[in-house]
């Protein structure tokens, strides 16, 4: 098992390195000159040349990539083109804001969705199962801003229960923070619960079709006990995969949700940087998003290996 996990970790590092090449290539090698983009209309050939020199644009692409990648490995994310501040100082607070929001949503969504999924698998074909499937299908199709706007309209405008903008600042109390971020959290929960629930249901049902489940029923065990004691443990590894897969979706979905509620997170940071065409900020944000994505997938892989009894106690090799 240890060897497998080390292999996965190595694969993750390689993937991240390749991703960094893609992010760099995508932003630097495409047509369009960064210096011209910064100076815009009033660029003279002299000022362009000076700026290119200053930004180190005259070096070859490989040398520039190596310089950029070396900086990232040492925690130096570059300097913003717009206001000349180090990208790291601007980025990390926003990153933690996003992680806090995503974590808040995950804490609510994951237990709820897995519970509902197991329940609807246990009562397959019942009214509860059918209603849950229908609601899941509906919320999966609804875009985040539709749900967000509906929540704003009913919860904050008509009844004034929660603020419509997720205003947060450093040093605010936990209660105030929870109140401000509850609406964005709800939207994220709504769009992820349905997916996790549906996939958990399918996974548990696949296990329920196994012969040992039939044996358990034939022994005279009750439905709930069969589901919880026999089916759920064997479905655990695939469920962990499903959850991790959907948490990565949460990371991307957060971009839209932050825009709806004007939340100061990494998603809005990146969107703003793209509209200003601030290259180092976009590169850094893209790398951070990609890293979170890769790490989550890695955790899912390792957890699936750790939870799989056949991999935990490899017997086949010794026989």
């Amino acid at each position, binding site marked *: 098992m240890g060897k497998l996990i080390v292999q996965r970790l190595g694969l993750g590092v390689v993937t991240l390195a390749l991703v960094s090449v893609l992010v760099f290539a*995508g932003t630097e090698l495409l047509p369009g000159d960064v210096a011209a983009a910064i100076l815009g209309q009033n660029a003279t050939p002299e000022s362009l040349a000076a700026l290119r020199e200053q930004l180190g644009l005259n070096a070859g692409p490989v040398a520039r990539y190596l310089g950029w990648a070396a900086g990232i490995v040492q925690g130096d994310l570059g300097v913003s083109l717009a206001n000349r501040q180090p990208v790291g100082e601007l980025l990390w607070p926003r990153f933690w804001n996003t992680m806090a929001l995503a974590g808040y949503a995950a804490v609510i969504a994951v237990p709820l969705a897995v519970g509902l999924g197991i329940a609807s698998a246990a009562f397959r074909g019942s009214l509860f199962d059918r209603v849950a499937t229908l609601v899941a299908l509906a919320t999966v*199709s609804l875009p985040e*801003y*539709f749900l967000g706007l509906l929540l704003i309209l009913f919860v904050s*405008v008509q009844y004034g229960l929660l603020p*419509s903008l997720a205003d947060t600042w450093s040093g605010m109390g936990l209660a105030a923070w929870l109140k401000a971020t509850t609406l964005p959290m709800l939207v994220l929960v709504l769009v992820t619960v349905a997916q996790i629930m549906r996939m958990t249901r399918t996974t548990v049902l696949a296990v329920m079709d196994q012969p040992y489940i039939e044996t358990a029923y034939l022994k005279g065990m009750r439905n709930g006990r069969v589901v919880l004691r026999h089916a759920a443990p064997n479905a655990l590894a695939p469920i962990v995969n499903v959850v991790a897969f959907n948490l990565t979706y949460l990371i991307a979905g957060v971009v839209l949700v932050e825009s709806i509620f004007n939340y100061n997170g990494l998603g809005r940071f990146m969107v703003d940087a*793209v*509209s200003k*065409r601030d290259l180092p900020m976009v590169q850094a*944000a893209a790398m951070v998003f990609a890293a979170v994505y890769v790490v989550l997938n890695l955790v899912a892989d390792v957890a699936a290996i750790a939870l799989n009894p056949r991999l935990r106690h490899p017997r086949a090799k010794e026989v």
Partner: protein
Amino acid sequence: MTLPVFGRLPLSALLGLLIVTATAALFLFGPMLAPFGQEEVLGTPFADPSAGHLLGLDQNGRDMLSRLLYGARMSVGVSLAAVLISFCIGVPLGFLAALNGGWPDLVGARLIDVIMSIPVLISALVVLQALGSSLPVLIGTIALLDSTRVFRLSRVVAQGIVVMEYAEVARLRGEGLWWMLRREILPNALPPLLAEFGMRFCFTFLFVAGLSYLGLGVQPPFADWGGMVRDNQQGILYGLYAPLFPAGAIALVTIGVNLVVDWALAGRTTVQGENR
């Protein structure tokens, strides 16, 4: 007189087909049906719905219904173009990779694994940052990013077909590449690819609307549903329904296509070569 086929349709599929047909009609004839131009300023911003303006006016005092009708062509058209291009790139390459194998297949598959390890939205933002947002860039970017998913699916499906006896027989008969692609693989790969087309359209449609909502997709003055949600969003704070019309339209189209795909997939969920 009712057509016999409609008798066997479940209610959900019927609803889905109805929505898809209506969307197609709006895409083809929307701008012609619009009572006003998409940029005509007709009154005060956020005016309430009235007989002349069934859905009221938007944040600049333009007719909401007319802009929705114009936006239908833009929103559906951009997504449709992107999905069509992504299939034109992904399907032939996927088939070829499965048919020929070897190192180009391996390199292609690994490269695509890496591209897919970045969230699509993030990749799209990186490219849009470099090239700026215009319609050709938007369609091209989404098509290229989407084609990686199409490539993966068509490769897997074709790999399942290539090892079938009838494909083996055709190869032994000495059939050329074109015959293999056109007569052996394509007809057998069509059902899963059509279902994928529906799902990809849904995804792309939401994606384009999402980018426009972020202000990085379709640019003004063109009306497009995602952008309209963004423009009218402040109205919600005054308890107005203005941004809910375009947002609801986006949701409705997505639900409709989803229902049709679900119905088309029901009963044959085991895609050929799926567990390879």
